[in-house]
């Protein structure tokens, strides 16, 4: 008898605790709560500041609706993984979230994003957004699923003092890859203990290895990664091998940071925080956002950057075509497909992206504006001395292949660059391994060559 009672008690306790666990999970379908999920790191607080400001304004304008801010403290790759895991269940999926443009299509395919066409049709500020940027949120079905916060462009940032010390004529405007290598060798000779030229590579740098590294090279060759017309991925291209060979040369000759340093995912922090201010690096490929770290109130305040830093467009392989190349990405805000209150979620998104907020965010995060009223605002143009130069680079810019398979293919490119920079594979072998992986991801029928 006693034993039975104990058993019943145990079952009861178990059932109760299971029920409790069930309750404590967040209920995502709630119409009165808007859950906003976004990335926050020690180097990226601009979005957090924006949402902290919008939250009380929004709650005041929409009585009865509460905004719950849920920053995820992680690098970009981990943020994407955590966000994807949250989206596995409608109960934990966020209502509004921060989404990288290159993941939009693949996440639309996965059914995570809400179609915004109807909401945008009624939003009178939508025509302020520049047409190219609008495309970033468009999926294969032609509908818009995400609204851009801003964009970015990429080029060369260099230290005037280090180049001068190596006897390089300023302004430095390399016209080919070889000119970059020659200058880098010149710097290496003059100051052997400094980093001559950095192009990001390897898996730890994540998407940065493609955007601020391999991709800047690849898009300056005669080949391409993806043929948009035939919707096929390109395999077996000479441009791919040449791009890897450039990385091999850069790392093999010790012109780039030592591979063990470069394979620490936090190298970019050193680059902005220690190397440039300390005169330890002569040049790098970096994005238009760089001044956000150095400006007053930035993470690595360094007011002298205005005088010491020079910028140049990144050249194509042999100076062919436009002679310059840039890549653009950028982030968007999107609404969750399973949101309990689509209207309020969109209103929150629209409020966060109105002119005043977009202006503030674009300046705080050194973003290239996508709203024409922001781009022409004097406060934006005066934000830092380089913003005009990088806004002009939009002419040369390329967007990443906007296909659902891109994130996986990007990961394969990162693996290829790591294999080459560490000397584990030759450019030819790494390119062959990449080709094989791409066929595995998209299938034989979706590749060329």
């Amino acid at each position, binding site marked *: 008898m006693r034993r039975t009672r104990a058993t019943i008690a145990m079952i009861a306790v*178990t059932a109760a605790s299971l029920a409790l666990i069930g309750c404590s999970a967040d209920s995502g379908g709630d119409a009165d709560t808007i859950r906003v999920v976004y990335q926050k790191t020690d180097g990226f607080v601009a979005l957090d500041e924006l949402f902290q400001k919008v939250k009380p304004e929004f709650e005041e304008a929409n009585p009865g609706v509460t905004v719950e801010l849920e920053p995820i403290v992680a690098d970009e790759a981990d943020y994407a*993984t955590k966000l994807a895991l949250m989206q*596995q269940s409608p109960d934990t999926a966020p209502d509004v979230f921060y989404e990288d443009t290159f*993941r939009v299509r*693949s996440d639309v395919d996965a059914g995570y994003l809400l179609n915004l066409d109807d909401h945008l049709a009624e939003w009178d500020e939508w025509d302020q957004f520049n047409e190219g940027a609008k495309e970033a949120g468009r999926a294969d079905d032609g509908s818009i699923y995400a609204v851009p916060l801003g964009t970015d462009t990429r080029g060369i940032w260099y230290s005037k003092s280090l180049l001068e010390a190596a006897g390089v004529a300023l302004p430095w405007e390399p016209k080919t890859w070889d000119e970059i290598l020659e200058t880098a060798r010149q710097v290496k000779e003059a100051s052997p203990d400094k980093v001559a030229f950095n192009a990001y590579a390897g898996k730890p740098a994540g998407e940065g290895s493609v955007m601020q590294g391999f991709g800047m090279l690849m898009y300056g060759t005669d080949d391409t990664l993806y043929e948009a017309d035939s919707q096929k991925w390109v395999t077996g291209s000479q441009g791919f091998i040449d791009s890897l060979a450039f990385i091999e040369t850069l790392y093999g000759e010790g012109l780039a940071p030592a591979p063990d340093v470069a*394979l620490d995912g936090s190298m970019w922090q050193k680059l902005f925080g220690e190397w440039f201010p300390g005169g330890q690096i002569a040049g790098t490929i970096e994005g238009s956002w760089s001044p956000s770290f150095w400006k007053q109130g930035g993470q690595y305040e360094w007011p002298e950057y205005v005088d010491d830093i020079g910028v140049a467009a990144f050249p194509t392989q042999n100076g062919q075509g436009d002679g310059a190349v840039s890549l653009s990405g950028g982030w968007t805000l999107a609404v969750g497909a399973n949101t309990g209150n689509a209207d309020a979620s969109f209103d929150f998104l629209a409020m966060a992206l109105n002119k005043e907020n977009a202006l503030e965010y674009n300046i705080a995060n050194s973003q290239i504006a996508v709203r024409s009223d922001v781009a022409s605002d004097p406060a934006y143009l005066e934000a830092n001395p380089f913003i005009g130069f990088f806004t002009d680079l939009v002419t040369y810019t390329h967007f990443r292949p906007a296909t*659902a398979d891109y994130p996986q293919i990007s990961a394969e490119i990162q693996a290829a660059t790591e294999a080459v920079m*560490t000397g584990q594979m030759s450019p030819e072998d790494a390119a062959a391994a990449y080709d094989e992986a791409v066929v595995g991801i998209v299938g034989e029928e979706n590749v060329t060559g």
Partner: protein
Amino acid sequence: MRLLPVVPSVLLLLLFMAGPVVWAIVISFSNSALTGRFAKDPEWVGLDNYTRLLADPAFPLSLLLTIAFVIGSAIIGQNLLGLGLALLFGRVNRTTRALVSTAVVAAWVLPEIVAAFAAYAYFADDGTLNQLLAGLGIDGPNWLFEYPMLAVVLANVWRGTAFSMLVYEAALGDVPPEISEAATVDGASGMQRLVWVTLPMIRGAIATNLMLITLQTLAVFTLIWVMTKGGPGVASTTLPIFAYQEAFKFQAIGYGSAIAVVMIVIGAAFSIAYIRALRPEAQR
């Protein structure tokens, strides 16, 4: 009716122990992903993930690294060092014994993430080890980059030896001193006593210990992830790291699960081998 009291625990075991294993096996036959069209509607792909795994050039290396990691850090490192320490404790005074076992157990008591950071700080390029070596006038290499496997093996030996030591200490305590004394009287040397008397008597403890540390070591993730992230390149990508990369970085949950299933099979193979090899005499 007599089985009723065990029903809740059996249910819990099935739900929380067998459930994830069965789920991993099921998922490994699908192309389930974290993003893209297969996130919404995963398809049954049969053995595709397994054939892809066998053809994946990264797999043999990863398998080899995993086995090297298990043999190096668990079977040789933790096991022998733990046995050695336990045997020594029979000969040293109480203070030495207390000091040594505290030092060894301390590494084991640390939460895994803390131990991993400590090991990272020790082996890092400008870490403790190289500073000590610099004191001796030796310019140490960047261990995590040039010898990543050696670094993680040593770190795992440091972290896990306490477990083997405690198991063997307890087992040796159960060996009646009379038997050893009798062997001594018969003229057996120290080595002969160890091999022919002591070890056979703790054979059960050896089997249990080997099995537990092998399974633990097969599953080590945090330590390697924090120290090397599986790199440089793939130079320390053991199967758990490989599975994580595929599932959560390349978003291929189905493929990652297939790797996890292979790990289950390897663990089971090791376990069966130990149980067979070290079965107590009476049951042979």
